């Protein structure tokens, strides 16, 4: 059998009954546990018509099973998740981004950690596709957010072969493994948006993939930048964090009201990152004995010998701390602790 025929999606005939089809996809473990839209030949063809790339083009091989993510297979999973055809270019770019070695998808997929892949969309496409960056942007209610994040996790499970309890060894997982996607609020933004910070032009559209361990809401009515940064830095410190062990890449969704406080104080992104990095250092002694051993294996080259008094920074450099601005009105920001041995990847969305 040639590699080419392996890259063609398998198909079969089935009774045209939505309950029976869902039963079948459930039995074969092709769903995430929620009902799916049946990926019929017509629906998949409509999805594929949104891009000019030949369906058999392999975008990436997805760890840990290293199945070929062809445009066709990405489209099939997108249909199942309920995506509109216009969303397909986002998923193609995201699949390519996840395959970059710095993202470390193999570990993200097979780890006991609950890592979910978070999609952040920037640029004009976010508004065109109505990807929510405002109120409840990582919650429910927006079709694009919900179905894009869901499609990505179906790709990880179905094409990557990471079935829960088998190659996906997550001890608990997390709700974000169903879906986790938002846009950045580029209108009420005191700084450059994420994609511009990462070298793209403001008029380009991009998707960023992040290996997110969870979300922790931070509600604070702090009115000065120094007070706000102090309480956020205190929140970052937790001795069960993978990031302190390995030197990670923590993310923040800064709420627009908090962003305004930082803007009024005249702080740029680099200054915010520097302050958080400095103020979130944790003494090595706060870690458990085994975690100190892991941190020694992982960070001695970076930090030299670790004594109980050594102050561990959460990341190797302040610039490893990542900030986006999103959300509606309110005194909230979100801390997104991450996997540690993974770096987010941003890709241009080709439409």
């Amino acid at each position, binding site marked *: 059998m040639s590699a080419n025929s*392996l890259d063609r*999606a*398998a*198909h*079969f*005939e*089935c*009774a*045209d*009954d939505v309950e029976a*089809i869902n039963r079948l996809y459930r039995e074969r473990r*092709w769903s995430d546990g929620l009902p799916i839209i*049946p*990926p*019929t*030949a017509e629906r*998949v063809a409509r999805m594929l018509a949104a891009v000019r790339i030949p369906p058999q083009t392999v975008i990436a091989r*997805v760890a840990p*099973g*290293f*199945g*070929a*993510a*062809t445009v*066709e*297979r990405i489209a*099939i*999973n997108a249909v*199942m998740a309920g995506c509109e055809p216009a969303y397909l270019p986002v998923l193609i770019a995201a699949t390519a981004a996840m395959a970059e070695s710095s993202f*470390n998808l*193999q*570990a993200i997929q*097979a*780890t*006991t950690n609950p890592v979910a892949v978070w999609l952040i969309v920037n640029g004009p496409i976010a508004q065109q596709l109505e990807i929510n960056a405002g109120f409840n942007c990582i919650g429910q209610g927006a079709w694009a957010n919900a179905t894009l994040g869901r499609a990505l996790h*179906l790709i990880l499970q*179905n*094409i990557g*072969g990471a079935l829960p309890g088998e190659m996906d*060894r997550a001890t608990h997982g997390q709700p974000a493994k169903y879906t986790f996607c938002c846009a950045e609020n580029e209108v009420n933004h005191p700084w450059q948006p994420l994609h511009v910070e990462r070298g793209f032009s403001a008029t380009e559209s991009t998707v960023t993939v992040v290996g997110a361990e969870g979300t922790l809401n931070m509600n604070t009515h702090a009115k000065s930048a120094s007070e706000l940064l102090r309480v956020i830095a205190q929140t970052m410190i937790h001795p069960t964090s993978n990031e302190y*062990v*390995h030197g990670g890449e923590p993310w923040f969704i800064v709420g627009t009201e908090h962003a305004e406080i930082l803007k009024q104080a005249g702080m740029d992104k680099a200054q915010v990152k520097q302050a958080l990095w400095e103020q979130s250092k944790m003494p090595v002694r706060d870690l458990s004995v*085994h975690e100190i*051993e*892991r941190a020694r*294996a*992982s960070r001695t*080259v970076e930090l030299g010998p670790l004594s109980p008094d050594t102050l561990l920074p959460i990341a190797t450099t302040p610039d490893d701390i990542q900030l986006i601005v999103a959300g509606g009105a309110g005194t909230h920001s979100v801390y997104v602790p991450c*996997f*540690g*041995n993974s770096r987010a990847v941003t890709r241009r969305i080709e439409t």
Partner: protein
Amino acid sequence: MSATVMLFDPTAPQVAATATGSVQLTSLAGAVIGFIDNAKPNFHHLVDDLADIFTQRYGVSRVIKQRKSSASIPADPAVIAEMAKACDLVITGSGD
């Protein structure tokens, strides 16, 4: 009889099996054994004990130990190549 519909399988076949052609060992006497320690807690103790047992009881001539900086990053390809060349058997740790 109800109508039928053509549906797609959303999964991808996993890569086809390849023959490894590994050299089979008939004895450990005089063999060189390599360990790639995944840096998980206690694994270095297991490596030390296995090295001890293999050297003292099975006549292994040499043990080479390498330690990854973390379980969740792959071993350096240069280290893998070097170990594959120098050793008759390479033992790695996976998971917890």
